[in-house]
């Protein structure tokens, strides 16, 4: 593992600063990604929370959508939170018809799944692979409606009818969370990303 992997944060809109601060504190070299040339040399990437419809438009107009999709398909380690999870999904429900997503993880995600802001909430979650539970802040959050083969569900919340809804999933290089670990000062999902980002760089060297 390299001392300081180069990790990008998609910086078109959303809570870019919070993610950057977490990565910086973990010793990563952080780069704001706004143009295609900013993808060069990245060992990992974070897609932040924000408004997924806005981000989808800005990914197109900035020319980032296609090259970023290629990097993800080629195995670039990525962490997506909330809107970032929506953007990485195979399919988005309750989105706009023209909303684009990368299809980097085989999940179907429902946008604004819990309702409007008055339904936003905080909760404590058991996450597979983490010894202590995680405090999670859900803001007009999505949840995962269905997962394909090869997707690990690492955490779920129970709906009022008792049915479990996945909120942390992983498939190969892609890790997604429906909530905002970057807002509650919990860096463990970022650590998982960095472990993978550093690993790649070491094997490439």
């Amino acid at each position, binding site marked *: 593992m390299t001392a300081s992997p180069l990790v990008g944060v998609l910086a078109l809109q959303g*809570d870019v600063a919070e993610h950057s601060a977490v990565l910086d504190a973990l010793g990563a070299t952080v780069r704001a990604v706004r143009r295609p040339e900013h993808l060069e040399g990245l060992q990992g990437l974070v897609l932040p929370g924000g408004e997924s419809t806005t981000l989808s438009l800005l990914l197109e*107009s900035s020319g980032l959508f296609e090259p970023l999709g290629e990097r993800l398909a080629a195995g670039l380690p990525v962490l997506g939170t909330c809107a970032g999870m929506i953007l990485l999904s195979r399919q988005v429900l309750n989105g706009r018809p023209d909303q684009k997503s990368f299809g980097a993880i085989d999940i179907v995600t429902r946008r604004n799944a819990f309702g409007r802001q008055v339904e936003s909430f905080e909760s404590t979650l058991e996450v597979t692979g983490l010894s202590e539970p995680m405090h999670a*802040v859900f803001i007009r959050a999505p949840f995962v409606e269905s997962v394909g083969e090869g997707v690990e569900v690492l955490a779920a919340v129970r709906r009022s009818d008792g049915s479990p809804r996945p909120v942390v999933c992983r498939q190969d290089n892609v890790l997604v969370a429906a909530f905002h670990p970057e807002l509650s000062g919990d860096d463990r999902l970022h650590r998982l990303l960095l472990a993978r980002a550093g690993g790649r760089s070491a094997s490439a060297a």
Partner: protein
Amino acid sequence: MRVKRGLAEMLRGGVIMDVVTAEQAKIAEDAGAVSVMALERVPADIRREGGVARMSDPALISAIQEAVTIPVMAKVRIGHFAEAQILQVLEVDYIDESEVLTPADEAHHIDKWAFSVPFVCGATNLGEALRRISEGAAMIRSKGEAGTGNVVEAVRHLRSILGDIKKIQTADAAERYGWAKQLQAPIDLVEEVARTGRLPVPLFCAGGIATPADAALVMQLGAEAVFVGSGIFKSEDPSRRARAIVEATAHYQDAEIVAKVSRGLGAAMPGEEIATLDVKLAERGW
């Protein structure tokens, strides 16, 4: 508070647009707005037509909520907690206790802690901002001078708030008590600003933004997102202008992109000189 402030964090780097119909809300969403502000008249019309400006008709707000999937905000009069109770029942995503409407209380703002819907409030200086935060506001915006298409007041308010934050960072303990007295703000919030070098909640810019360059200006000065009121739907080509302001806000540090999106947008809203105004909305609030 983390949940309330959290939505404001998610709006950062985005544009919140005033809309008066469901059709305008769709245009705003299509153009990439992160949120819309539902109201009956944009500030330029309130200014021109005069009379008492109140909370919008709930039917209009609901129609706008139905039309879009992005967060919907709406305004209440300063101090009018009964209007805010109605907006909470409607489940708007943010309530703007706004000087653009006619104030309902000349001494008190709403106790915003009593609500589960988060509030945004305007401020012209750091003292006002911290008083609103102490009352429970989860987002602060500059007031600017709404409905004028003139950005000068918003720039003054941003520079005042951010300038005083810088000064407080270098103040010693005794001076911080002096600041609290001068700003008429709680000492614990002054201490927090001194420690962190920023407001305890996100700082957005509102009031007089009419062009992509205006958005790039206030973002470079330190605003974290922009509200555009009359500037879009009082212009010649609202859809293109809205899109251009979204791009300029995202790429505010990239003059090449701001230049590109500024080309051929048609006429901006006409705008007004501040000195000629009869009513200054920014003076409302205490």
